[in-house]
């Protein structure tokens, strides 16, 4: 009876192990074992290996050494009649996704850069827990678009301590002796004027590096006028001597987005003050 066994050596990965001549070389993975003896040149070649992590062990009968080796025998690529690329930059260390409402793609790592290949035209929303989401319209096959996500400093209760050190009133009180308070709620901070004259403020515990971002933005509900500012030092917060940049937002009952140009500033303390109002989110983009 003759069996025509398939030539498995024609498929799979090849691992060349260089070790002391004459030692026994053993590969194991998922219960499978392959063994060879290293030749006079110290080389043992294993072919037809499945993808994955193999444990390589050598022994001369007296001593043994082992190490894991990752074999990549299978590669994949996606083909489609429509293909476009969205080059995304996002805060490193964070996850990132892209979705058109039907298909959701996930960045392969947390490096902060992602060449996202999409196979559908449409509006793609790029999202990251550390950033406000952004949308981009993909309309043409072969299109390349770029999205640079911002960096949250505060968002609906989250203080992003790794960037800001947290948010505090310490160092942001004005020289006026009149009482005011800043209260942290689950989803916002509220500055409340409780008597007298003056403004209350809250801001980052640490100085924030702007990392080349050019715009500081905030969403506030300015019951009275509020000011978004960047400071060189935290106290006195109302002193023009240490104010790097500021922008006022007029009183309104509606949530309002305010923008401050900060492209010429490398770093600073970020603060918001006012007589009355709510702070919903603050970010750099």
């Amino acid at each position: 009876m003759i069996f025509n066994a398939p030539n498995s050596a024609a498929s799979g990965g090849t691992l060349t192990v260089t070790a002391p001549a004459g030692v026994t070389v053993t590969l194991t993975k998922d219960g499978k074992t392959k063994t060879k003896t290293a030749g006079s040149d110290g080389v043992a070649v294993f072919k037809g290996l499945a993808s994955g992590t193999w444990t390589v062990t050598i022994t001369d009968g007296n001593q043994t050494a082992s190490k894991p080796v990752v074999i990549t025998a299978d590669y994949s690529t996606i083909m489609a009649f429509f293909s476009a690329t969205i080059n995304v930059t996002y805060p490193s260390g964070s996850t990132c996704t892209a979705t058109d409402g039907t298909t959701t793609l996930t960045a392969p790592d947390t490096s902060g850069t992602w060449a996202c290949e999409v196979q559908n035209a449409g509006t793609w929303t790029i999202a990251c827990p550390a950033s406000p989401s952004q949308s981009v319209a993909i309309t043409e096959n072969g299109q390349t678009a770029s999205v640079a996500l911002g960096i949250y400093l505060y968002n609906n209760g989250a203080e992003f301590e790794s960037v800001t050190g947290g948010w505090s009133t310490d160092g942001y009180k004005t020289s006026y002796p009149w009482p005011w308070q800043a209260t942290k709620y689950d989803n916002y901070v509220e500055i409340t004027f409780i008597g007298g004259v003056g403004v209350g403020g809250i801001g980052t515990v640490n100085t924030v590096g702007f990392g080349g971002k050019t715009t500081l933005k905030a969403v506030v509900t300015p019951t009275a006028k509020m000011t978004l500012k960047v400071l060189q030092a935290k106290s006195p917060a109302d002193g023009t001597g240490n104010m790097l940049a500021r922008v006022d937002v007029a009183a309104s009952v509606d949530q309002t987005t305010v923008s401050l140009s900060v492209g010429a500033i490398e770093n600073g303390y970020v603060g918001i003050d006012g007589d009355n109002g709510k702070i919903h989110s603050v970010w750099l983009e």
Partner: protein
Amino acid sequence: MKTIYIDSDFKCHAASADGLTAVETDAFDGKCDTYIEGYRYVPAGQTWTRSDGVVFMGEMVAPWKPWAELDAAQQGYEQGQLAAVSEQLSELDAAYKEGVDSL
């Protein structure tokens, strides 16, 4: 409070000139001319559109030159002011002592 002058791009100038608009602000009290002229001042009610298309509403005070350079200029200015005041105090002190000695 001091008077500064802004051009059509809202860049600040320390001195008046044709085409500039005078504004009163306390944002630059104690600041040297070099520091002032590295800033933009967008008055309340007006908007400025940056070259990348982002729109900013006033009242906004923000540097357009690298702030580190402006800070260095301001520190140099303040050191010069301090030296001048110190010299004046020394002159006053000398005059006082001369006056006392003459009594």
